[in-house]
Structure formats: C-alpha cells, structure tokens
C-alpha cells in the first residue's frame, strides 16, 4: 500500500518525531517500528494529538494528586512542597464535618438509587405500551425537555415555586395545611426532598432513552407468542420486555452503585445556601469549599482522593457481584 506524501495538510499536522531518525530495516523481515510508524504518519499524528491532550489534561492532574501527601503551598511548585505522609487523611478522619458530610452524601444518593433508579425503567415499560405511535413520540419529546434546562435555570424555577408567594405556599395556605409561608430552600429538613424530586423531574425522560432503545430491539413475534399463550399486558411487560432490558439495567446499576459518593455538584451548588448547609454539605461541596474557597489545597485533594479510591473499589465490587449473579459486567 502506498502513502502519498504530496497532500501534506498545512499547520500542526507535521510528524511529531524528528525526521532524521535512523530508518533501519530492523531485525527479521518485519520493517522496523520507526518505518511502520512513518508509513502511517498522518494516522499517528491524529492519534498522538489526542494522547498529548490526555497526558496534559488527565495525567498531569493525576500526578498532581501527590499534593495530598504533601504540604502544598501556592507559591512553590508541587515538587518542592515537603512530604507529610498521611497527615491530611488523618485530619479528615478527625474532622467534625466528617460524619455530617458522609451522612448527607449517602442520604441523597441512596434515595436517588432507590427512587430515582427504577422510575425511568417503569416509565419506559409503560411508555412502550402506548398504542398510538404519534402520542408516544410526543410524550418522549416532552419528557426530554427538562434535561435540556440548566441547573441554574432549574434552580430559578424552584426558587420561584418555593418562594413565599410561590404556588406551593399558596396552595398549602389555601388548603389550610400551613398557617404561614415556609421558606423551603432555607430549611435543612426539606433539602433532600427538593434535590431528589428535582433530579427525577429533570432526568426521568432522558434516563429512559437507553431502556426504550433496548426495548425497541425486542422482536414483535415475542409479543405475539406471548399473546397466543394468553399473557396479559402486565405479564408481557414482566416476561418479555423486562428480560430484554435486564443487561442494560445491570450495567447502569453497577455505575449507579459506584457513584453513591458522587453528588450532582451542579445541582447541589445551585440549591445550597448558608441556611441549609447542615443538610447540603456533601463530599463534593466540602472538597470545593475547603479547596477553592478556603485555599486548603492539600487537604481538599486528600478528601477528593479518598472519595475517588472508595468509588473505584465500589465499582469493582458491584461489577464482580453483577458478574456472579446475572452474568453481566462492565469489564
């Protein structure tokens, strides 16, 4: 196969390795690595640009994690900072915020897992039973809409709904259920409920896409056969549709379990404030607060690292459990 050198594209696409490199024939009858690399120089250039980007923006920050074991100071470089071992981790273990931060994070995540995870599946199952194709398409389009709103805008919508003169207070006052308006966003007790409800409202339809896609692959003959066997609608859902999306559910569940220490930071940052802090201080916010707002770079990195490592372990456990139980796994 011949590679034309005449059509060299301009700018930035020149080979990254000096051209005067020795071009020997190498050992054996295979051309040398260098010869084979230059034979695909355009391809290598394209690939290496991506590799360089990953080294800079993914791998250099990974190297930067070592400041978790150092006393990093912004005026010195990372290499110059003195090693302090596990000091910052120990400090986090004794931190008075520790219990609260973990409780808030897990509290929100577990509710999202228990309520937020199954709802899109149920929605997909029932949407699949809608007979009119046009109606089904319209519901789908509408259900995607909230996904495209930003969390800032949704925060504004929630603030409007929950304000003292907002619709929620008005309805509850009119029904006589409360005597005076409640400032929901200023009350720690309501925080978790607001986070979970708004998350479901925003992502229900979007999360269902992947299940609907899997369902669309089920052959209509399966349903016909089930009908002949006398299966009702619920039985068809249970015995035909659900098994068809079991693998998808397993994979997404593995990911959801490994993500229990993650909060949707965009969401938390919008909905939190000083008044609901006792309920809204989650690990991700604590990392942001100690690091960016208080400038404790090493400490914040240590907390973040601890979180990533636990998340990775959770992923491996969830993956191997799923492999054993139902033969589906991520890797």
């Amino acid at each position, binding site marked *: *196969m011949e*590679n*034309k050198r005449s*059509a060299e594209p301009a700018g930035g*696409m020149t080979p990254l390795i000096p051209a005067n490199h020795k071009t020997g024939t190498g050992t054996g009858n295979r051309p040398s*690595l260098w010869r084979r690399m230059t034979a*695909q120089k355009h*391809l290598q250039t*394209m*690939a290496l640009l*991506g*590799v360089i*980007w*990953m080294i*800079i*923006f*993914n791998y*250099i*920050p990974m*190297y*930067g*994690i070592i*400041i978790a074991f150092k006393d990093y100071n912004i005026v010195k470089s990372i290499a110059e900072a003195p090693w302090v071992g596990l000091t910052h981790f120990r400090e986090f273990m004794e931190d008075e915020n520790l219990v609260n931060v973990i409780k808030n994070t897990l509290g929100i995540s577990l509710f999202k897992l228990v309520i937020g995870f199954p709802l899109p599946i149920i929605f997909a199952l029932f949407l699949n*039973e*809608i*007979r009119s194709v046009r109606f089904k398409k319209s*519901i*789908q389009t509408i*259900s*995607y809409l*909230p996904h*495209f*709103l*930003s969390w*800032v*805008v949704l*925060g*504004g*919508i929630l*603030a409007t*709904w929950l304000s003292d003169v*907002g619709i929620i207070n008005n309805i509850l006052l009119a029904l006589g259920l409360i005597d005076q308006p409640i400032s929901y966003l200023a009350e720690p007790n309501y925080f978790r409920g607001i986070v979970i409800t708004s998350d479901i409202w925003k992502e229900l339809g979007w999360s269902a*896409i*992947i299940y*609907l*896609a899997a369902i669309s692959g089920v052959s209509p003959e399966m349903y016909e056969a089930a*009908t002949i066997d006398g299966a*009702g*609608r619920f039985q068809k859902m249970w015995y035909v549709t659900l098994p068809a999306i079991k693998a*998808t559910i397993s*994979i997404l569940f593995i990911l959801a379990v490994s993500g229990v220490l993650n909060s949707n*930071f*965009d969401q938390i940052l*919008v909905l939190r*404030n000083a008044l609901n802090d006792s309920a809204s201080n989650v690990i991700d916010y604590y990392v*942001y607060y100690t690091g960016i707002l208080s400038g404790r*770079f090493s400490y*914040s990195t240590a907390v*973040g690292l601890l979180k990533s490592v636990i998340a990775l372990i959770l*992923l491996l456990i969830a993956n191997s459990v799923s492999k054993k139980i139902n033969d589906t796994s991520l890797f």
Partner: protein
Amino acid sequence: MWSLKRKTTGEALFDLANNIIMLCLCFVTLYPIWYVIVNAFNNGSDAMQGGIYWWPRMFSLENFKAVFASPGIMLAMWITVAKTLVGTVTHVFFTAMVAYAFSRRNLIGGKIYILMGTVTLFFGGGLIPTFLLIKDLHLLDNFLVYIIPVLFSFFDLIIFMTFFRDIPEGLEEAARMDGANDWSIFLRVVIPVSMPVIATIALFHGVYQWNDYFAGIIYVNNPDLQPVQTFLYRVVAQSSSNQMITAVQGSNLVKSVTSQSIKLATMIVTTLPIVFVYPFLQRYFVKGMMLGSIKG
C-alpha cells in the same frame, strides 16, 4: 399493534389508565415551566403578590425589554454563544479526528492509547489538581478556558469509534486506491458519512457548553468573560435582590420590573435556543445513546 384481536375490557382499561398517567406526566413536566413563563410575561411588581397560575394578570413585555437593554446580560449572552459555537466545533472535530485514528485496527500503539483513555474514565485528578494545572497553563480569566480543557472527551471518542468501525471498508479502500492519505480519508470520506454521530456529539457538547456555569465560577473572575449561566447563578444562588436591577441600570424601564421578574425573563431567553433545537436532533441522539451503551 401486535394484537389484531379485539381488545378485552381489561386491555381497554389498561390503555385508558396508561394514557391518563402519561398525560399527567406531561402536565407535571410542562406546567412548572409554564408557571415561570406566565410570571415572566407579567408586570414585575404585580407578580410579587403571587397568584399567577395560568395566564399573565397584567401582561407586560417590559421584563424582556429590560433583559435586552442590559449591556451586562447581553455581553454574557454573547460569551455563551461564542463559547458554545467555538467549543462545539473544535470538540467535535478534535475528538472525531482522534477517534478515527484510534478506530483503525492497524494503528501502531492503538491498544496502549485506548488503555490510556480507558483509565481516565474511572480515575481522574479531581478538582484541585485540575485547578492548579489550569492556573499553570495561564488559562485563568482567559476565554480559552472554556474551550481547551474540554476539547477532547474519551467517552465521546468511544461513541465516535463505535460508529466509525461500522463504516464499510470498501469506502475507504476506494479512496485509498485514488491515492488519498489517512488525513484526507478522514476529511472527505469519514466525516461526510458520519453526520448522525456528529450531530449527536455536537448536541451533547453544545448543551454542556450552553448550560455550564461552573467553569465561569472557578476559572473566571473577570465579569466581562462570564457566560450567562454563571451570571444567572450569581443572581439566583446569592439571590441578592439588587444585583439584577444594578445590571439593568441605565435603562428607564426599571419601575415596572423587579429583580425577580428580570431573572425569570433571562432564564427564558437563555433556555429558548436549546428548546428549539433539540426536537430536531432527537432521532440522532437516541441513536447516539445506543452507540454509547453498546460498548461496555
């Protein structure tokens, strides 16, 4: 659809209940947005009393006029438009280019490159090390901070790669016979046949660029560089009532509008473009989500 038999009573009841549930769901999805819209189209000080549910009580366009008359908000909008356009075009092109190279099975080192990328899906440096990198690269308070750190995404690469591997080899072979090199095959053969996946990634990244406010918070101090979502965040989250009014100072519309009513109008103006675009790309992103899920 699959049943040609007459519906039984149970079936009919099921269909009725299901349709009603779905209609309720549509209402629950749309009404919160409608509530904001009617309040935004109402006289600001009148809306403060609440009770506007279905239709504006004192219809007014003043809130929207105030938004468009505010140099601060308009500048932030332009920053958003610029970062979305530049960011989406460069992200899609760069990620697709790397994905094409990675998708070729004869790429020397391909396995190592893909392994390097896979690691990044499960582990990363985190907030502070990334912040320090951005600082060292002199990207703080720089427009490019919206573009370069998100130029590439390995997750998007997987979606591209899955698609590229399904392109019939005959297409590329024919171009190669004509003397085309890998670069021109990528530009002239691969890109033109990959429009569905390009549209999907462009939509995903475009929405990210349009909606992201966090980069504007941690990497940018200069108010002239903040995108509109960051601007909104500052007024929504800090809910300091004077900021919006300060932002529209210089216009003489201030009397009938309140900080709250301008906030609502700004929210609507910033959301409209996306709401108009996504239905047209629906068939693409549904397919794109499937491609992303096959791998794994």
